[in-house]
């Protein structure tokens, strides 16, 4: 093995199982249990990426999920995924990883010349530079910025893996499987409640060291023992590799389980990741803490890393990140690392301690012969693609000595991980003794324990975890069985020094991933971005994929110094989910492609398919759009269908219309209040067109409603508004008028329907239904309704017409749909019956000037649609009062008109705007717009409906221009009545 792998140690790796992997195409070997980062370090690879803005060489900063630098592309082809943190990517046989953000290679990156330009690339550079001219933005600036500031490439092909959504409930959710979390889970579980323990990493135990002792045994043995105990309890669910990333209302937590990220491809049937919605009565947050870097010049050289990362690599992976290490520190935690390095035989060049006095922990290390420089902080790291030496200075900026080294461990103090606690909506609180923010007083059923609460001592973590578990179980209603907390030796730590910016003139990075330097933050302050939220957005501090886990507190410290104010006055930016990046695929889950949304098919879907229908989505419904003959184009098919219906007959599936059955003695009164027109006088056996307004006076929906008996109505709505109309009615009956005797329910999927339209419609129905019903003019006049028995079931026939032809709609129970279609189809064979789709339906109604969805756009009044006279003045109805407001009845409102194409284009287009002068088309001169268009067989030209200021009266017979800048067209159109065809309605009688 390589020289960087230590002979002993590494509690997570299995030295008997080598694992092969590649990085940037080169083959390496690590061990089972390694992360990509630990395996690369073991192979002496320190350079793992290039930085975002300046393309500086970077190695890993951390050994965990807070990693800002070592982000790589993993896998290849359709599974290629950018921005994976090498420090948490578990090694598997055949792993492929590539560095990002470099060209042509990691070692030689041409864009690292950005460093030479760096005086210009300061905070706000993009805002200041790419401002002018505006026309350069999309074609030029955006492309440059995107190319130079990319963070890896996503796969282009569809993701072959699946993602699941799952739900679970528990009494106590414990977030974090370190010592505090384990102790909490154990005490809560013993109380009998259902416990979920979620841990982000593959391994539990958090920051415990094998040299720590818990309950008299080595800490790693205690961790294994405790896990085994928890696994044996039926009320406990253990979730490794699961990041709880969001804390939402009512103690709902979102978590991402990385089910198959640690294997090359998901095993048969397993998802790649699983998104969990966890509903917890009580929550224990034992999320740990993040160490802070120290801010000195060139602190981003590969080999410069966090103190606890160095310790983790040595203890957990048996890898020493360097052969000669300099430690720089503000606190005692560095000496734990020093002890472990000394035990592992790694040389420590010097320990620079910012504090003035030698702490107890420091004395012990000094006694082992390590040089300790008090009152000393780093000045700058030296070297090229790897650190070669570190220059030190005194607190007041006098350079002292330079030490040769290949690794620098930075112990800048710990920031409790308050992310989830703060997501509940309360800001964390500054603790000046800890030099960090601690969780606020909870406003939800949660409590923090251990390092995330600011307790960094193992004994305290165990005690707090134990107590938090008991408290949570008790609050969830379980009798707490006190027991004793797991015990460890309490260690008194010395004070922590607050050093935010070590003096220097060069680049001292605060936010490594977004290349935000200390100077950027002071510049932001100088330019007036003094609020922490403004400074964040101006500098992009904390806005990268790591969300500033290692950098936010340092950044706030530097901003506070620049403002000359204490840190609590500066405060933190707001914490929002997600805690760490979550792939869009996980959010989408199964809801993609075919499973994106349910598909609704009508009872006669197969009949349409058999006749060659092309289907169109109408909401979730699939409706036949047109029925092309062999070698027939779309437009030809539509033209033929709409022509043929008026010559012989056509059949159309109208099952998707909303249908509502309404019963009750007050049903007529109820409809009177919903519709603008009257219903009480409608006789049983008759139908009527109805129009509904919203409360604000605008048109809501329309449809035909029939009276089947004194106390029984049958309403139809448009396909699009079916659900909204039902909700509107439920509001009216439940909230507004509970005293009315009216009951109703949706019957959209209980009744299916077809329309048979055209001169031969009656003959076809007579043949299909025979003696089952009387189709005479007397028995079934226009707007007549009959219920009849057919084929052993109940059918309804409505003589209503959307097309303007002699037409009927027949409804039968859903399961009889196919049978009815076939009966009508067979009967129609001698009478020229053709199927027609939604497009021909639209042509027919446009020729008649009937409004549909395009015209009901939520901005039109009944009068705009030419239906103002339908508004009854004899009864109150919803929307009545506000429909009379000044602006709603103004003469110059846009009103429904017909438009005929004269010349200037081959066709009309919906969406075009109407102008008197095509060369002076601007918002001020805008007269209206086109809503629907068709190539009309009856008119022999393109026609359209639209809304025009003042309506037909103002522009009848005049020529306007339908301007469509998207197509560069402005054809001349003639304004006519919207009732293009058969304005007197003579064809309704066949």
């Amino acid at each position, binding site marked *: 093995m390589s020289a960087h792998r230590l002979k002993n140690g590494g509690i997570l790796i299995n030295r008997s199982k080598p694992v092969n992997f590649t990085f940037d195409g080169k083959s390496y070997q690590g061990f089972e249990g390694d992360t990509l980062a630990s395996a690369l370090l073991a192979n002496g690879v320190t350079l793992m990426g290039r930085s975002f803005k300046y393309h500086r060489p970077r190695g890993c900063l951390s050994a965990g999920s807070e990693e800002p630098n070592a982000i790589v592309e993993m896998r290849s082809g359709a599974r290629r995924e950018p921005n994976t943190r090498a420090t948490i990517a578990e090694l598997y046989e055949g792993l492929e990883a590539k560095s990002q953000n470099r060209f042509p290679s990691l070692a030689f990156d041409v864009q690292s010349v950005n460093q030479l330009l760096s005086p210009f690339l300061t905070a706000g550079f993009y805002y200041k530079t790419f401002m002018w001219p505006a026309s350069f933005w999309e074609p030029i600036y955006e492309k440059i910025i995107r190319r130079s500031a990319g963070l890896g490439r996503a796969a282009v092909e569809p993701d072959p893996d699946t993602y699941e959504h799952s739900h679970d409930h528990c009494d106590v959710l414990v977030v974090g499987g370190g010592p505090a979390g384990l102790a909490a889970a154990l005490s809560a579980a013993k109380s009998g409640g259902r416990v979920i323990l979620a841990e982000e990493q593959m391994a539990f135990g958090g920051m415990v060291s094998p040299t720590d002792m818990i309950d008299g045994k080595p800490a790693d043995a205690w961790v294994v023992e405790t896990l085994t105990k928890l696994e044996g309890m039926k009320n406990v669910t253990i979730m490794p590799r699961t990041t709880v990333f969001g804390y*939402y*209302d*009512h103690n*709902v937590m979102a978590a991402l389980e990385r089910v198959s990220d640690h294997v090359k491809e998901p095993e048969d049937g397993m998802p790649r990741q699983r998104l969990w*919605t966890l*509903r917890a009565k009580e929550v224990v947050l034992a999320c740990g803490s993040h160490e802070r870097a120290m801010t000195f010049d060139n602190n981003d050289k590969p080999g410069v890393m966090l103190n606890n990362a160095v310790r983790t690599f040595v203890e957990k992976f048996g890898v020493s990140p360097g052969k000669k290490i300099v430690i720089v520190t503000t606190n005692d935690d560095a000496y734990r690392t020093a002890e472990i390095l000394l035990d592992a035989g790694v040389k420590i060049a010097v320990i620079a301690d910012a504090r003035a006095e030698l702490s107890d922990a420091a004395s012990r290390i000094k006694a082992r012969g390590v040089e300790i420089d008090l009152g000393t902080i780093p000045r700058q790291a030296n070297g090229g693609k790897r650190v070669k030496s570190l220059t030190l200075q005194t607190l007041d900026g006098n350079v002292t000595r330079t030490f040769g080294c290949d690794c620098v461990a930075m112990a800048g103090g710990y920031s409790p991980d308050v992310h989830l606690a703060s997501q509940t*909506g309360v800001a964390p609180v500054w603790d000046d003794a800890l030099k960090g923010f601690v969780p606020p007083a909870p*406003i*939800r059923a949660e409590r923090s324990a251990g390092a995330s609460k600011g307790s960094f001592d193992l004994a305290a973590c165990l005690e707090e975890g134990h107590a938090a578990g008991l408290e949570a179980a008790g609050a969830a209603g379980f009798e707490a069985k006190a027991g004793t907390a797991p015990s460890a030796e309490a260690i008194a730590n010395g004070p922590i020094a607050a050093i935010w910016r070590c003096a220097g003139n060069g680049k001292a990075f605060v936010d490594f991933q977004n290349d935000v330097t200390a100077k950027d933050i002071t510049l932001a302050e100088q330019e007036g971005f003094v609020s922490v939220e403004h400074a964040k957005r101006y500098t992009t501090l904390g806005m990268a994929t790591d969300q500033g886990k290692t950098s936010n507190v340092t950044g706030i410290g530097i901003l506070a110094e620049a403002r000359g104010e204490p840190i609590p006055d500066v405060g933190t930016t707001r914490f929002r989910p997600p805690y760490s990046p979550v792939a869009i695929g996980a959010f989408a889950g199964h809801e993609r492609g075919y499973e994106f949304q349910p598909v609704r098919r009508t009872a006669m879907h197969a009949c349409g398919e058999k006749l060659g229908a092309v289907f169109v989505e109408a909401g979730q419904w699939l409706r036949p759009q047109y029925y092309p003959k062999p070698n027939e184009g779309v437009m030809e098919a539509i033209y033929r269908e709409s022509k043929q219906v008026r010559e012989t007959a056509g059949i159309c599936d109208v099952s998707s219309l909303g249908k509502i059955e309404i019963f009750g003695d007050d049903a007529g009164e109820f409809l009177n209040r919903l519709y603008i027109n009257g219903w009480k006088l409608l006789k049983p056996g008759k139908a009527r067109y109805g129009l509904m307004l919203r*409360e*604000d006076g605008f048109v809501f929906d329309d449809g035909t409603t029939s009276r089947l008996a004194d106390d029984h109505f049958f309403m139809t709505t448009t396909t699009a508004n079916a*659900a909204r109309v*039902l*909700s509107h009615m*439920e*509001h009216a009956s*439940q*909230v*507004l008028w*509970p005293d009315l005797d009216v009951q109703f329910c949706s019957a959209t999927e209980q009744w299916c329907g077809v329309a048979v339209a055209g001169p031969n419609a009656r003959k076809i129905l007579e043949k299909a239904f025979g003696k089952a019903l009387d189709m005479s003019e007397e028995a079934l006049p226009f707007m007549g309704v009959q219920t009849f028995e057919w084929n052993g079931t109940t059918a309804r026939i409505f003589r209503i017409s959307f097309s303007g032809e002699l037409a009927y709609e027949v409804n039968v129970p859903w399961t009889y749909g196919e049978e009815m279609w076939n009966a009508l189809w067979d009967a129609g064979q001698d009478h020229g019956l053709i199927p027609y789709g939604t497009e021909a339906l639209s042509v027919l109604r446009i020729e008649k000037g009937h409004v549909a969805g395009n015209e009901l756009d939520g901005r039109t009044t009944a009068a705009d649609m030419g239906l103002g006279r339908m508004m009854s003045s004899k009864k*109150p109805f919803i929307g*009545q*009062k*506000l429909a*009379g*407001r000044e602006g709603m009845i103004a003469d110059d409102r846009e009103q429904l008109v017909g438009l005929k194409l004269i010349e200037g284009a081959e066709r009309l287009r919906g969406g075009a705007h109407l102008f008197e002068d095509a060369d002076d088309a601007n918002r001020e001169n805008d007269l209206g717009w086109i809503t629907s268009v068709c190539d009309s067989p009856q008119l022999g030209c393109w026609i359209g409906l639209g809304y025009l200021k003042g309506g037909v009266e103002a522009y009848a017979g005049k020529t306007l221009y339908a301007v469509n800048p998207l197509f560069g067209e402005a054809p001349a159109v003639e304004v006519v009545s919207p009732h293009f065809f058969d304005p007197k309605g003579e064809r309704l009688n066949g």
Partner: protein
Amino acid sequence: MHRINCPWCGLRDEAEFQYQGDATVVRPEPDASEEEFFRYAYIRDNPKGWHTEWWHHTGGCRQWVKVVRNTLTHEIHATGGPHDDLPLPEGDK
């Protein structure tokens, strides 16, 4: 993600409901003035704290449920039918 206690169905997930706005506004009588209808249709308070709202149980019993909810903490104090009088918690406006 709220969990709402539907008076008819019991504790249910927010996803089953449609938020339908302010439940404190009362529809004026038909002969009320245009101004009163204008206020009913358009004017809403935006309270920080306790608020009485409509949540329509569209994915369940289809009843309009009155909910006293804290707009700041999302805590739900009480739920009831459309004509139940649900007082706000004491000590809050």
